[in-house]
């Protein structure tokens, strides 16, 4: 065990929960709950407005989170951090604000077939709305992006062209569990067309791996607080400052404005220009506590722990189900995080999840918001177990043993 289950109040309750759905949302440590509680019980004022100490404290804590996040992902300045509701809203902000102003008919928007709907549909709709071409990178039967030649060298000449305006790609797949070599991919994209704007969906990466936006050399990067021990209701958009400064606001109203006249308005500077209205103050403060928690545990330890658990689980599953089992993305050459999505012949994923649920084991069944990927794999739906720092070998063992029961009930 890497992290005490007792740090997570939901796990220390009597209900004997086996939580294997951390890729959907992570559990929350007491430290995060406490930080939010403290805001609500001791200084629950609005930010950037009040001149009294309560509000000043709330503003300071909120803004401090911006700095913490900037440091956490290696941003040049805290002004490059924008708080949204979730990763999905962050992608939409870029698609609307940047996309609608810069993409035209005949341009190309490129993404991949393994994206979460959050990093797929906004681009598809932007393409439909502007008349741009929507290009989707396929995968091999192993589940790797189809952009490598026989020798494993990146080969993007066919997809990235002088007409490409936007390239959007995930860092870690929420179904395959694979870590894309994003740094190399970005380098290869830039070598073909340095003008392409690159957005990285790091929703499944930031919770598990060290992410550095300058090292990656992307233009935008998005993630959600709730998958990294933080609360629901907060997402992050990181963007290069020069890009953000030249983009129009996405939402209009209070807080994002400097001057309002009947005949014109003047926007606030970045990042406030993109944070209209009262934000999720408690949530942002909770995110700061979550980052501290992750840093205290250590991201390197987290990913090692998950990798071991996932490998162990895959091995046990193969032992138990032989050739009735198929784990998606298993034969990829890429490194994996703690995600195991699978099918078992003769067992419908809903029934698997339903029977496990009766034992308080939480896994997910369905398309996991990645329908293009499932269609490509020819899988109707999959079951998915996902691990985090509080998951244990005992969890994995219980999961496999109850899965065996489910198998004998269903077949």
């Amino acid at each position, binding site marked *: 065990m890497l992290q005490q289950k007792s740090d997570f109040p939901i796990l220390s309750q009597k209900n004997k929960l086996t939580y294997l759905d951390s890729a959907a949302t992570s559990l929350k440590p007491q430290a995060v709950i406490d930080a939010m509680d403290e805001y609500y019980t001791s200084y629950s004022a609005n930010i950037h407005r009040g001149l009294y100490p309560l509000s000043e404290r709330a503003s300071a804590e909120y803004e401090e989170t911006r700095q913490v996040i900037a440091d956490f992902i290696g941003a040049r300045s805290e002004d490059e951090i924008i708080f949204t509701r979730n990763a999905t809203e962050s992608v939409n902000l870029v698609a609307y604000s940047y996309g609608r102003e810069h993409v035209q008919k005949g341009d190309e928007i490129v993404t991949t077939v393994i994206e979460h709907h959050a990093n797929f549909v906004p681009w598809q709709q932007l393409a439909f709305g502007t008349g741009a071409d929507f290009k989707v990178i396929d995968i091999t039967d192993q589940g790797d992006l189809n952009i490598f030649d026989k020798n494993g060298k990146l080969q993007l000449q066919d997809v990235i062209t002088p007409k490409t305006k936007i390239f959007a790609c995930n860092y870690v797949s929420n179904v395959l569990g694979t870590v894309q070599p994003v740094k190399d991919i970005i380098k290869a994209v830039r070598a073909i067309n340095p003008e392409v704007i690159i957005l990285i969906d790091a929703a499944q990466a930031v919770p598990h791996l060290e992410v550095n936006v300058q090292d990656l050399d992307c233009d935008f990067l998005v993630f959600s607080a709730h998958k990294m021990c933080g609360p629901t209701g907060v997402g992050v958009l990181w963007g290069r400052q020069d890009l953000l400064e030249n983009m129009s606001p996405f939402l209009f109203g209070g807080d994002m404005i400097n001057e309002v006249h009947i005949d014109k308005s003047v926007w606030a500077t970045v990042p406030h220009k993109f944070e209209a209205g009262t934000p999720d103050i408690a949530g942002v403060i909770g995110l700061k506590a979550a980052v501290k928690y992750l840093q205290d545990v250590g991201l390197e330890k987290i990913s090692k722990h998950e990798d071991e658990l996932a490998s162990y689980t895959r091995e046990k599953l193969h032992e138990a189900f032989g050739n009735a089992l198929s784990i998606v993305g298993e034969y990829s050459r890429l490194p994996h995080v703690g995600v195991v999505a699978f099918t078992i012949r003769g067992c419908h994923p*809903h*029934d698997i999840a339903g029977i496990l649920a*009766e034992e308080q084991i939480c896994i997910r069944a369905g398309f996991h918001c990645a329908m293009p990927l499932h269609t490509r794999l020819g899988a*109707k*739906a999959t079951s998915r177990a996902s691990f985090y720092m509080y998951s244990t070998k005992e969890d994995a063992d219980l999961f496999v043993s109850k899965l065996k029961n489910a198998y004998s*009930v269903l077949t």
Partner: protein
Amino acid sequence: MSIYQELILDHYHSPHNSGVLQKYDADVSVANSSCGDKLRITLKVRQEKITDIAFTGEGCAISIAAASMLTDEVKGKDLEAVTGMTKDDVLKLLNIQLTPTRLRCALLPLEGISKAILSLKSTML
């Protein structure tokens, strides 16, 4: 209590009325977009009664068992009575409690049968 009761599993493992009717008056398909399940229902009608019905498709135990039981139930019934069937009638047949997500699985067959009857009416009009 588990929803995977013997009755449900029996119907799941050997569903009644499985297949496609050779001669039918209605032929519809319905799908559950959250898991990709699909059912195709064919039925035959004489004098405002369902005289025969069959289904094929893929689904979880709950949706297949519901299809099996519901097709048994509606055979020989007046169209009007079948049109009036609700969620509670399906749950009574299954004799289990379901969460909202699984309810969608259980109700897919009823949705299919209702759609089939509707398609009959529109062709008769």
